[in-house]
């Protein structure tokens, strides 16, 4: 895979993941091209198009377009499944995910993506595994600074409690923190 873009129906970028090194200018150009190409497509046309030497697979979920570019020898139908899997992961994490979730929690969307794909390849094929890893990583986060934890779903209250415990234990020393973190993970 070469890149993954998420953009709204008005062409506003919500997420960009590049799997090969590209200059900023080229990135901007590609984003412009993709949004124009994909937004111009008829509603019931097929999800594939050819662009330069890449195959573009796109799918619309509610108000967001997911646009994935793969090389010519890759399987387009499977790429559709990859997009779908990512949406499922986001949905499981945020609970009925909508565009606003991704706008306000873009860094989480990136973290989830980084647990699912890496270097343009799938890294984990099990939904549950990805979710577990994300939740465990979230628990390791120290609550204060970014304020991003405030938006966590009700489903994650347990993890919020535990993360508070973790915060308190910070003062108890690094060793206890480590052990507690590990304990929380196995408890899941």
């Amino acid at each position, binding site marked *: 895979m070469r890149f993954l873009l998420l953009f709204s129906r008005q062409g506003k*970028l*919500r*997420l*960009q993941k590049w*799997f090969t*090194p*590209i*200059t900023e200018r080229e990135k*901007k150009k590609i984003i412009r091209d993709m949004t124009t190409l994909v937004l111009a497509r*008829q509603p*019931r*046309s*097929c*999800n*594939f*198009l*050819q662009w330069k030497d890449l195959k573009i697979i796109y799918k619309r979920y509610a108000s967001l377009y997911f646009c994935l570019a793969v090389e010519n020898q890759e*399987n*387009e*139908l*499977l790429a*559709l*499944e*990859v997009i779908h*899997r990512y949406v499922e992961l986001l949905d499981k994490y945020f609970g009925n995910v909508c565009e606003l979730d991704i*706008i*306000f929690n*873009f*860094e989480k969307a*990136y*973290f989830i993506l*980084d647990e699912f794909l*890496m*270097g343009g*390849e*799938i*890294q*984990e*094929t*099990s*939904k*549950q*595994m990805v979710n577990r*890893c994300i939740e*465990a*990583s979230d628990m*390791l*986060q*120290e609550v*204060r*600074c*970014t*304020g*991003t934890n*405030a*938006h966590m779903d009700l489903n994650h209250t347990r993890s919020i409690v535990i993360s508070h415990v973790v915060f308190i234990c910070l003062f108890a020393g690094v060793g206890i923190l*480590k052990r507690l*973190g590990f304990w929380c993970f196995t408890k899941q």
Partner: protein
Amino acid sequence: MPAPIRLRELIRTIRTARTQAEEREMIQKECAAIRSSFREEDNTYRCRNVAKLLYMHMLGYPAHFGQLECLKLIASQKFTDKRIGYLGAMLLLDERQDVHLLMTNCIKNDLNHSTQYVQGLALCTLGCMGSSEMCRDLAGEVEKLLKTSNSYLRKKAALCAVHVIRKVPELMEMFLPATKNLLSEKNHGVLHTSVVLLTEMCERSPDMLAHFRKLVPQLVRILKNLIMSGYSPEHDVSGISDPFLQVRILRLLRILGKGDDDSSEAMNDILAQVATNTETSKNVGNAILYETVLTIMDIKSESGLRVLAINILGRFLLNNDKNIRYVALTSLLKTVQTDHNAVQRHRSTIVDCLKDLDVSIKRRAMELSFALVNGNNIRGMMKELLYFLDSCDPEFKADCASGVFLAAEKYAPSKRWHIDTIMRVLTTAGSYVRDDSVPNLIQLITNSVEMHAYTVQRLYKALLDDISQQPLVQVASWCIGEYGDLLISGQCEEEEPIQVTEDEVLDVLEGLLVSNLSSPVTRGYSLTAIMKLSTRFSSVNRIKKVVSIYGSSIDVELQQRAVEYNALFKKYDHMRPALLERMPIMEKTASNGPTEIVQTNGEAEPSVVEPKHPPPVGQPASQGNDLLDLLGGNDVPVIPTTMPTKPASAGGELLDLLGDLSLGLSLMAFYLFDLFKTVNFLSTGIPPMTAYNKNGLKIDFTFERANPNPNVAVITIHASNSTEADMTDFVFQAAVPKTFQLQLLSPSSNVVPALNQGTVTQVIRVLNQQKQQLRMRIKLTYIHKGSAVQDLAEVNNFPPQSWQ
């Protein structure tokens, strides 16, 4: 300094901006705040600030001043900091900036961190954007992690290794030992990434490929387990167990089995199993089937399996899902070369796809249809393709038109059908036809001699309807110029002849000249056509008037032509008929076909025509002669034969002509197709000679040097008959001494008409490497007045220049 606002707040604020300017203002304010916060080296809020910066970066604003801050975050001990820091590094940094190298040490430390999630972050970042230097430094760490028992880390290390290999292929060997028992893992994540790693290694190195071939049985077993195993909640997707892994294994099998009989045989069963057992109701199943088909087509599979694969593709074509139809068409396009007959069976479905509403599908269907055209189905296919050409979007028309021309040229069942097809394309998609098709079409038309009348008639009618499509207009005006006489005379066997007067034709051509729709090139074509008609029509005065008007045209090209034609009328009127007579058949040479034809059309810019250009000598001249006969006119046939005999004056005049107009070998030369002999005479300076003259049969030799080989002399014999009876079954044979090599091409005909009404021409090519004096013995046999005549003669009076 108050605490910087939270990320969430910032996002909310920015979203309330109603205009781009308002948004920019907010962002600039926030950027300033962030910058001052960075300057204060505040550890507590750095994470928050960088997160905000990343958001603004996504909106498209510059964020490069945050790069160093990302590095500081990565170096921090807090997990939150590291998380945002690494994310920032992946978004803001890339190999081009030297800054990224500072990350190397941090990553190295984090790769050895006690928390696996930190290690994971480091591996992820390295695997996404690690530069070659970083990869070289850290490959050892990655290799170590590849051997760990922690599956979370192992899978990440595998993908990181893939990235390292992509960046620094030489390091591939390093990871070989670690791959030993990768496939015996139970964890699907590790299994999947291992297959990816193995695929990458096999794709890059044939040695690795050979080495890993032994894994085929293991891979087959894993695939089998996946298919046969029951429901597994972890990996199930719509009833199929881990489709991602299945597809990846199929892809690796494809690479391993390609070109190798044993491996291919080992996979035959499992491929058949997957192909038949996979559930096809959902996209997932079809994705696996698609990959299976691709694998079957690539390896050395048995024919039964290949047929199965093509049938699967055929079923795909009938699927309601557009994506699947698209994928089927793409795959069939790949296989049409190798399994042509099998794909032909699905031709009707493919042709139906031309009518699909989806643009991507239409394009694929069009490409595939052209690939499927052959001699048997040409008529039916062409009907469908022409219908498609009528109704398709403009983006397709150029490609479709070119495809139609190519297919028509290869498989045309008859000349008339060919001309009709060309006409159809020109009239429906005329403006989208490529510019280089025009000369090709003209060449095609000249080659189908018997269709000239029909062609010109149809083109004329098309012109009456519509003059906006330039390629059509250009071809039509050229043809009218050439064959206007046929148009007027109304002789047409193929169709109802139309009654057209000279004035009407000239009206149409003049109309082209003045119309706004005509491009400059088209105007050039029509002016030349009008000029040519001066020898074919009788209303010469009208033509003279038109031509003289354009002598002062603003368009330089038109002006030049008009001036030259004027000169032709005034000073060189006696040459006019010869110059403007019918074009002979143009040979399409493989190497310089289009350019040659363009030059001979005379539509190109006045570039220098090299004298070597004239194609095989024998045919064209005789064609010209035949057509000249058709036209009648007693003085005309004389020219080809008399010109060589008064070389000096003709050459002299021609030189004067060229000198006067000071155009070098001007456009005039372009029309000297039949006078190529003269041109050649000018260039070679070898005078023609009479080789034999007895009993009324006269044989003249004319010479030219063939390029590129100057040792080859090309001699054209012209046999003429001054008796009252024709000489039939005329055969000319020649023999040369052993030091020469002789090649005799076919004669123009074997009847020498009586009373010098025409000549038989034949080309002799003599290779004279030793530059010896040319001598030839000729033998003539013919039937004259009922009796057979045979004669032998020696030809010794070759001019010295012919063999020196």
